C-alpha cells in the first residue's frame, strides 16, 4: 500500500465527521532491494560522487612556495578560493554568479530532457539516503525482514542490530562532516590536528552539525525532505513539458491489471486484459513509497528503480519489458488515442536555448578566466583636498592606489602616468625606478595600498576655474620583469 493510499484510507476513516484530519503521521517505508540497469547506474553514481566528495580535499596541487598546495580549498581566513589551476579573489566573486547560472541552467536542461534526473540520481539527499538504506538492508535484512522485526518489537537481536545500524550511520555521517571541514583548511594537517584533539573548535562544531544533519536527514527524514521540504519538485512541475522523458507506467498496455491467472482467463474469454500482473513490485522497491501506476506525482523522484523491478517481473512472466519506462507525456496521449508513439525529441527549442545559455555563460567565464591579468590597480582620487597648492605654486593631486599581485612571487611594479605629462610622480613607500617612475614591491598573493602624488607646474596666470580645472589621466602599472601592464583612469584637478 502506497503512502497515498494509506493516507487516503486514514483520511477516509476519519472523514466520517464533517472535518478531516489536519495532520497525518508518516507511513514508514521499507524499500525492497532490486537489481537491474538503473540500480547499477545509481550504484555507479553513488560511488563516483561520494568518492569525489571524500577524496577531493586530499588531492595536491603545486602552486609554488607562497600558496597552499591543496587542489580545492576555500581559504576563508585569507579570502581565497582555489580550484586546481584557478584562484579566485573576493572581488572576483562574480564567477560564483556564473557558476550558479550554469548550475540552474544545467538543472533546467536535465529537466527538459529527462525530468527529475537530479532528484533520482544526483541529489545528495538521494545519494546519502540510498547509502543509508543499503546499510540498513545489510544489517537488518530486506523489506520483509525489516517489516517483521518492526512488528515484533524489541528483542535482543533487533536491539543489537539497531545499535549496529545506528553506529554505522553515525560513522558515515561523521565522515561526511569530517570531509566537509577539509575543504576549508589544509586537509592532511587538519586530519592530524583533529585526530590529536588540537583542531580548531570551529572544525569540531561543523563536523558535529554536519554529522547530525546527515544522520537525521538520511536516516530519519529521508523521502520527507523531497516531499515536504524541497522546493525543486514544485518548481520542476511548473518547468516541465510534455516532451520531457519521465518514468511512466504505460497504462494503455498494462490495464486492466490483474494476476497472471486472472488475466489469462480474461484473455481466453475474449475480454481485454493488460500486461500488469499487479505484483506491486514497483511500489515495494520505491524509496518514496509511491505507486507509479497512478501517474506522475510530486513524491516521485524518478530514480528508475520501479523500471528495474517491473522489467524483472515482465521477464519472468514472459512478457516484453518496458511496461514502466522513460516515456513522454505526449506519447502517453498518443498511445491512448491508439496512435504510434514518437521517438524522444531531445533537440527542442527549450533544450537548445538552455544549452546555448550554458554555452554562452560558460564561454564568457572561460574567456575572462583565460585572459584575466595577474595584477590589478585601483585608484581613488583624494576627496579632501581635491588638489594641493605647493609653496612654489605648483599643483599636486594625491591618489590612494591599491595594487594587487595575484602571483605567488613578490613583484616590482612601476607606477606611470603616460598620457598627461606631470612634473613629478611619487609614491609613499616607493623606491626610484630605473625609468624614473616610483617602484613599489608587492608581496606574493597580496595587495598593497599606497599614496601617489602627481605634481604639475604652476598654472599660467589667468587660467583656471573654467575649462582647465579637470584633466583626464591614466595610471599604468607595469611589472618591471614581465612588462605586464594594467591601467586605471582618473582625473587631475586644477584650481
Amino acid at each position: 500500500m502506497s503512502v497515498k493510499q494509506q493516507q487516503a484510507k486514514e483520511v477516509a476513516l476519519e472523514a466520517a465527521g464533517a472535518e478531516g484530519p489536519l495532520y497525518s503521521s508518516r507511513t514508514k517505508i521499507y524499500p525492497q532491494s532490486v537489481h537491474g540497469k538503473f540500480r547499477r547506474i545509481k550504484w555507479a553514481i553513488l560511488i563516483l560522487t561520494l568518492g569525489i566528495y571524500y577524496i577531493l580535499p586530499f588531492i595536491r596541487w603545486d602552486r609554488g612556495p607562497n600558496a597552499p598546495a591543496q587542489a580545492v580549498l576555500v581559504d576563508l581566513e585569507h579570502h581565497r578560493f582555489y580550484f586546481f589551476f584557478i584562484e579566485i579573489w573576493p572581488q572576483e566573486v562574480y564567477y560564483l554568479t556564473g557558476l550558479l547560472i550554469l548550475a540552474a541552467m544545467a538543472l533546467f536542461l536535465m529537466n527538459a530532457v529527462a525530468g527529475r534526473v537530479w532528484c533520482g540520481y544526483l541529489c545528495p539527499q538521494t545519494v546519502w539516503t540510498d547509502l543509508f538504506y543499503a546499510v540498513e538492508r545489510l544489517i537488518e535484512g530486506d523489506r520483509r525482514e525489516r517489516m517483521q522485526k518492526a512488528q515484533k518489537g524489541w528483542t535482543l537481536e533487533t536491539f543489537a542490530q539497531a545499535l549496529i545500524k545506528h553506529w554505522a550511520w553515525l560513522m558515515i555521517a561523521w565522515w561526511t562532516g569530517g570531509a566537509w571541514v577539509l575543504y576549508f583548511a589544509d586537509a592532511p594537517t587538519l586530519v592530524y590536528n583533529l585526530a590529536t584533539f588540537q583542531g580548531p573548535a570551529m572544525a569540531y562544531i561543523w563536523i558535529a552539525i554536519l554529522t547530525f544533519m546527515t544522520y537525521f536527514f538520511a536516516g530519519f527524514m529521508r523521502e520527507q525532505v523531497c516531499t515536504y521540504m524541497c522546493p525543486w519538485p514544485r518548481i520542476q512541475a511548473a518547468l516541465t513539458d510534455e516532451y520531457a522523458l519521465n518514468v511512466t507506467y504505460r497504462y494503455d498496455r498494462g490495464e486492466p491489471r490483474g494476476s497472471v491467472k486472472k488475466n489469462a482467463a480474461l484473455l481466453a474469454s475474449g475480454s481485454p486484459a493488460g500486461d500488469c500482473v499487479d505484483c506491486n513490485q514497483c511500489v515495494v522497491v520505491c524509496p518514496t513509497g509511491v505507486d507509479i501506476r497512478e501517474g506522475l506525482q510530486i513524491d516521485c523522484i524518478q530514480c528508475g528503480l520501479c523500471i528495474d523491478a517491473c522489467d524483472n517481473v515482465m521477464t519472468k512472466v514472459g512478457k516484453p519489458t518496458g511496461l514502466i519506462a522513460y516515456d513522454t507525456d505526449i506519447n502517453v496521449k498518443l498511445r491512448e488515442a491508439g496512435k504510434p508513439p514518437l521517438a524522444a525529441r531531445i533537440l527542442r527549442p527549450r533544450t537548445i536555448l538552455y544549452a546555448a545559455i550554458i554555452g554562452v555563460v560558460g564561454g564568457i567565464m572561460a574567456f575572462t578566466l583565460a585572459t584575466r591579468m595577474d595584477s590589478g590597480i585601483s585608484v581613488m582620487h583624494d576627496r579632501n583636498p581635491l588638489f594641493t597648492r605647493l609653496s612654489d605654486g605648483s599643483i599636486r593631486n594625491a591618489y590612494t592606489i591599491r595594487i594587487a599581485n595575484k602571483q605567488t612571487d613578490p613583484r616590482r611594479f612601476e607606477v606611470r602616468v603616460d598620457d598627461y605629462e606631470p612634473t613629478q610622480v611619487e609614491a609613499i613607500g616607493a623606491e626610484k625606478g630605473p625609468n624614473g617612475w616610483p617602484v613599489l614591491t608587492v608581496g606574493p598573493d597580496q595587495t598593497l595600498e599606497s599614496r601617489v602624488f602627481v605634481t604639475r607646474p604652476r598654472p599660467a596666470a589667468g587660467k583656471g576655474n573654467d575649462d582647465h580645472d579637470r584633466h583626464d589621466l591614466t595610471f599604468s602599472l607595469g611589472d618591471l620583469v614581465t612588462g605586464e601592464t594594467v591601467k586605471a583612469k582618473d582625473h587631475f584637478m586644477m584650481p
Partner: protein
Amino acid sequence: MSIAPHDPSPIDAHTGTATTGHEWDGIRELNTPLPRWWLYMLYASIVWAFGYMIVYPAVPLVSSYTKGLFGWSARRAVAEELAALTAQRAPMVNALAAASLTEIEKDPKLLSFARAQGKAAFGDNCAPCHGAGGGGAKAFPNLNDDDWLWAGTLEDISATLTHGIRSADPQARVGNMPAFGADGLLKPAEVSAVADYARSLSGLAVDAKADLKTGAKVFEENCAACHGPEGKGIQEIGAPNLTDQIWLYGSDKATVVEGINKGRGGVMPNWGGRLDAGTIKALAVYVHTLGGSGG
C-alpha cells in the same frame, strides 16, 4: 468533474481525496494533511522560546528587566569584542610603540599599519579643524602641502602633536604676531604699505600706487626680526614664510592688513595627555605621508 453543490460526501470524486468539509460557493478544499512532525516543530519552537526567555534577557520590568541565566548583555559583548580586537592588534601596536618614527616609515608593514591607525585617529581628533583629508581651511593649515609653520619633519610633527601650539602645555610651541595696528605700533598708512610689500614678496600683483619703499622700510624695522630679512620666515618661532604661494588666512590685501592690525595666533591643542604615545606616532606618520614631506 466538479462536486455537486451540497454534496454531503466529504470525499472528492475526482481525486479520491477527502475534503476538509469547508465549502465556498460550491468549491471545496481538498484535505492534504500536514505531516505531524511539522506540528511537533511548532511545539518545539514554543518550548525553545520559553527556554530562550529564561536564558537571555527578555521581559521588561518596571525599572529593570529579566537578566537571563548568564547575565548576557549586548554592551558587554561589544566590550569583549573590542578587547579581543585590542589583543589581536597588540603585537603591531607594541611594535609601533617600540620603533622610532624613521624606522616606522622604512618598514612597509609598520608604515601601512601606522597609516591605517593614523587615519582613524585623524578622523576622530583632527578632522574637525583640518578637514577629513587634512585639506585645511582658513586659519587651519592644509597638512598636504609642503609649507610648514613649525617645520614638517617627523620629529617636528610629533612634537607639535604632543605639546600643541599656544596650548596649555608648558612645552607648547609659542610664537607671537603682534597686533601692530590695534596696539598703535604702526600707523594705518604704514600698515597698508607693509601689507603691499609683504604681498609683493610672493609675486602677487600690487596696486601701482603702492608705496613699496615705505613698506620695505617698515618691514625691515618691524617684521624682519621674526620673518627674516627676506621674508622667508623662521620655523623655530612659527613665523611663516611670506615669499611662498601659501597663505593661511588668504592673500587679498584686506586679509593681510587685518592680520597686521590685529595679529594672528591660531591654537592647536596638546594631544600628549589625551592620546597614547603609539597613536601620536601613528598620527605623525600619517600626517607626514599626506604629502607634506614632499613625497
